[in-house]
């Protein structure tokens, strides 16, 4: 599970409300995608390319736990996210929808917006192709890696509900 693309860098403590405004949350996914993160960087939704990497700071995705926020990011075609740390509900939602997320404390200090990053979500290694520096992210727990491989929670829910009891 790998991705390579342009780094789009965002700051600390960004709430899900800033990814998808609440009045858009009951609209179409296409509308949410077109406006995702619009208050923080309007160029992101316009110019993001499939495979690009979203990098953000501490406690990314705090506040409301609506899965439409990571779903709107996923709909842009990004290859995944690398954050200094993620808010709990956002973290859970990413794996449940099948969107790879790495936590790598120090990532925002180590990369700049516009750098080209190569990310291996299984090994947790992020390579900055501009500076040729590699960073080691935290390992994704095996349970959540299984969920990513399954394509999210829904495809594995039946098996999970039965085998654990």
């Amino acid at each position: 599970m790998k991705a390579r693309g342009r780094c789009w860098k965002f700051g600390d403590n960004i709430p899900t409300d800033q990814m998808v405004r609440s009045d858009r949350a009951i609209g179409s996914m296409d509308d949410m995608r077109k406006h995702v993160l619009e208050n923080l960087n309007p160029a992101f939704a316009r110019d993001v390319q499939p495979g690009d990497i979203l990098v953000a700071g501490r406690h990314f995705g705090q506040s409301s736990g609506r899965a439409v926020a990571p779903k709107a990011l996923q709909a842009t075609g990004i290859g995944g996210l690398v954050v200094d740390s993620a808010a709990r509900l956002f973290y859970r939602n990413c794996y449940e929808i099948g969107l790879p997320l790495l936590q790598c404390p120090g990532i925002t200090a180590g990369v700049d917006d516009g750098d080209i990053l190569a990310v291996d979500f299984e090994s947790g290694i992020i390579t900055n192709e501009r500076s040729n520096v590699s960073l080691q992210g935290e390992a994704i727990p095996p349970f959540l890696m299984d969920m990513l491989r399954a394509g999210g929670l829904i495809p594995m829910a039946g098996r999970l509900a039965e085998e654990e009891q």
Partner: protein
Amino acid sequence: MNLVEKILAKASGRQKVEPGDIVVANVDCLLLHDLSGYITSRVFENEVHRPMKYPERVVIVFDHHFSPPTESQARVLEETRAFARRHGVHLFDCGSGNIHHAGLRNGFIRPGAVIVGSDSHTPVHGAVGAFAAGLGNNSHAGMVMPFGKAWFRVPETIRIELSGHHKPGVTPRDSALWLTAQIGEGGAVYKALHFGGKYIKELDMWDRWLFPLITVDVGAKCGFIEPDEKTVQFMSEFTSNPYDLLYSDSDSDFQATWSYDISDLEPQVAASPTLGNVGPISVFAGREVQWAELGGHGGGRIEDIRQAAEILRGRHIANGVKFNVVPSSRQVFQQACDEGLVVDMFQAGCTWFPPSTGSNQAINMGAMAETESMVSTHARNFPGRNGSPKAKMYLSSAYTVAASAVRGVLSDPREFLA
């Protein structure tokens, strides 16, 4: 084991669980509101294609809309009503109060239970000794609805030990706002927070409630308070169904204990842009406000309305200030009627709104232009939640909301409480 570990062990059919374990636990109640209910219903019907396993455990409360302002919102509510009828789940329609008050007061929340919901403040129900956590739409649609279960990583627990007594004019909400900043946004990611100590023990139940309410905003998974005789008395008002009173073992482990003394606190304000931006009222005093509100997922309690009335009785709010009073439940409005508070607040210039979550995210009220500011008992102050990203939201106690409404600028309530 502590209370949360015992609840998760029991609900997953295990003798013992430890922090870090992944368990699949039976869920006793799923709470959804009008925003999350609609989104979850779409995922359930479009992607899951299985029957609803326990419709009697699923509760939808329309609390962001006391009345839909647009045709498209009316359609969303109608579709959600149809979903509730199709699957036989409980629905509390517009005007029922905010989701957490409606869930509790209608008997769906019990000590020892596993409560999940898509509102991120769902952990508030740890106040009665339940395990309560916010989950995402796919957990609810993909596992809770079709199987009655959810997966959890058993969290490490941090003990929050609170001591001291308030100064006059300072309230438990001031303590909770201050504590949010002390722990910090993201200061307790994925942890369970065990709120205890003499201060918590002495609080009434609706004031204890304000502490598990902050857990999501410091990044925690859940918060809880050990049940006691006050809990049992409180629960008897809402349900006659039996429940398990579980308690933490006296030798249960904590990852850490963080102790705080609240004795020296002044009235606190949390100012936009984030909940960690907290300071004493003296830092913010004098800033103009055009809106004041008692409401939101943690506000609009009878305690809040009584505090505001204490300041507003015989006074009038300033020219240019609009003051929304939003009861958290129908019962609270009835209580306010019985205590004469409805008239007191009305005569002071306030406007009563239907039981709901009020201006929370400005779904049916409470949008602001970029030049406007609000002081409220809401739980969130992030830019853009109430209209313009430049509008400001100040969170405070009901005393401070009322005092600021009288002056038209953020004000120290103690000047009115002498």
